[in-house]
């Protein structure tokens, strides 16, 4: 067992435990912090797969952006002391059956299909990813920037309080 593989085992155990905590805890703030741990763990998994640029993006956008937004979402909606922090599970049994079926299907696919073996990692990735964005993936890149503009305007339009002048 190489050190990389040992680190991979430890980090995947950490990610799965944090995900399990997100799924099972009854407190939505604790779930947000569990998600923070899981997302950091995924960033470490990216480093172990020698995806350095992706790990940096994961920390910047997920941990720094999305998770802060989630915590804002919790704080702006639920009031403390109202008992509204409790996350009551409903339709537990159908959800369990669905997850078991899909998990079995994924495990079977994992087991049956001959997946390609991993090659040797090829150095730092940031420069070549940037090059791909400006050559092969130029159109998706531009569409993505337009989408972000639309989202920026749309989010403000949806979330603002409606002001009617009468």
């Amino acid at each position, binding site marked *: 067992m190489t050190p*990389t*593989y040992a680190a*991979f085992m430890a980090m995947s155990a950490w*990610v799965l435990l944090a*995900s399990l905590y*997100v*799924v099972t805890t009854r407190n*939505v703030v604790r*779930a*947000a912090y569990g*998600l923070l741990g899981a*997302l950091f763990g*995924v960033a470490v*998994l*990216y480093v172990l*797969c*020698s*995806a350095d*640029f*992706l790990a940096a*993006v994961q920390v910047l*956008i*997920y941990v720094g952006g*999305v998770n802060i*937004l*989630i915590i*804002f*979402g919790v704080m*702006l*909606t639920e009031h403390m002391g109202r008992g*509204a922090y409790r*996350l009551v*599970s*409903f339709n*537990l049994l159908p959800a*369990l059956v*669905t*997850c078991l079926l*899909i*998990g079995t299907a*994924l495990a079977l696919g*994992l087991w049956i299909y001959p*997946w*390609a*073996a*991993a*090659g*040797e*990692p*090829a150095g730092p990735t940031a420069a*070549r*990813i940037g090059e791909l964005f400006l050559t092969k993936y130029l159109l*998706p890149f531009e569409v*993505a920037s337009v*989408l972000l503009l639309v*989202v*920026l305007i749309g*989010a403000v339009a*949806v*979330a603002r309080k409606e002001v009617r002048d009468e």
Partner: protein
Amino acid sequence: MIPTTHLLAVGAAMFVLGLFALLTRRNAVAAFMGIELMLNAANLNFVAFNQARPEALDGQVAAVFVIMLAAAEFAVALALVLSLYQTFRSVHLDEADEMKG
């Protein structure tokens, strides 16, 4: 060197956990946390597939696009949750049962 199948197994487990959160949570924000877990599981799979051809990097570019879409999606989701809260004074998904704003 991490075997591809092991990464895929972690991704599959994470996906199922996220799906479970999405199906059982009442709170809209907690349901979105399940979606984030599922998106991360998909990203992990992209990185695992990228390992088969490390010099091509197509999987990692796809993963960057997924991260960007997830951030955009959550911004819209937060706006929707806030507007839901203004209408119903609650973010419980089973209480928001009418389309009229």
